């Protein structure tokens, strides 16, 4: 268990990066209310809940045309 506690600070940079992506994606979802499919609530949940995968999915297939 000591080792598991020791590793926690090392996790922080990874979590920070995940959080940055989630925030950027969430802001984009809010500011550009046009999606290829799904709606605002759906994409907000996706980008916040699914770390890393959520924001990537949004930017690759969910984002609508630039308005």
């Amino acid at each position, binding site marked *: 268990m000591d080792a598991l506690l020791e590793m926690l600070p090392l996790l922080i940079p990874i979590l920070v990066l995940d959080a940055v992506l989630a925030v*950027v994606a969430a802001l984009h979802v809010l500011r550009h209310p046009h999606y290829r499919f799904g709606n605002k609530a759906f994409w907000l949940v996706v980008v916040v809940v699914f770390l890393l995968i959520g924001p990537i999915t949004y930017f690759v297939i969910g984002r609508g045309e630039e308005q």
Partner: protein
Amino acid sequence: MNGYAAFLKKELTENMKNYRFLILFAVFLIFGLASPFLAKFMPEILSAVAADMQMGSAPVALDAWEQFYKNISGVGFSAFIILFGSCMSSEYSKGTLVLLVTKGLPRRAVIFAKYTVAAILMTACYWAGFIATYCYTAYLWPGTMLSHVFTAAFYLWLIGFLYLSILLLGCVIFKQTFTSILFTGGIVAVISLLGIVDPLARFNPFLLTSKNVDLISGAASVSEFLMPTVISIAITIIGLWFATILFDGKQL
């Protein structure tokens, strides 16, 4: 030259504005950080979850690099190919290039600028991931000395250029993003399958992504990488050359 520089600038801005760079940089950095971390703590986590798991030997620094090569060549480059798969199709489908080409933008400047920007971004992402793994490994296994760490990473970096060249070729040929990605995936699969065939394996660029860990552990020598490197660079250049030729005859 005007056209190349102007289009290069446009491509750089575009990749910032559409979040491609941000996403890829984050992906490479996350996997760079996570690789040593997973190597070190995965056995413990597993044993904590399933108490009767057999513990293998204690993880070493080499395991961290094994994770790095597995993740970057798998997830990292795949993400890169998927995100850049639309680099031509978005221009084709909207017809945005017509105006610029009729203004005197040379067609090959389009291809070279797109490749340059993709290569610059790939380089930045890749080495950021490398530095992350390097630092975490040094911290988690203090005092471990490994040889050829940089050289091994250099070879995988070269493969990045090869993938981008194949991807751009696919993007020029096919109008659809999905088909371009499929084309790239298919070619990469063929290359790796050829890696199994014995007489070819020694020359195959696939070696540059599969023997990196062996190079660090000492199971493989630098000289083995020479021919695959030469061939990889040759295919990269040929792919790019084909892309410019095919693009010259492409209706925009």
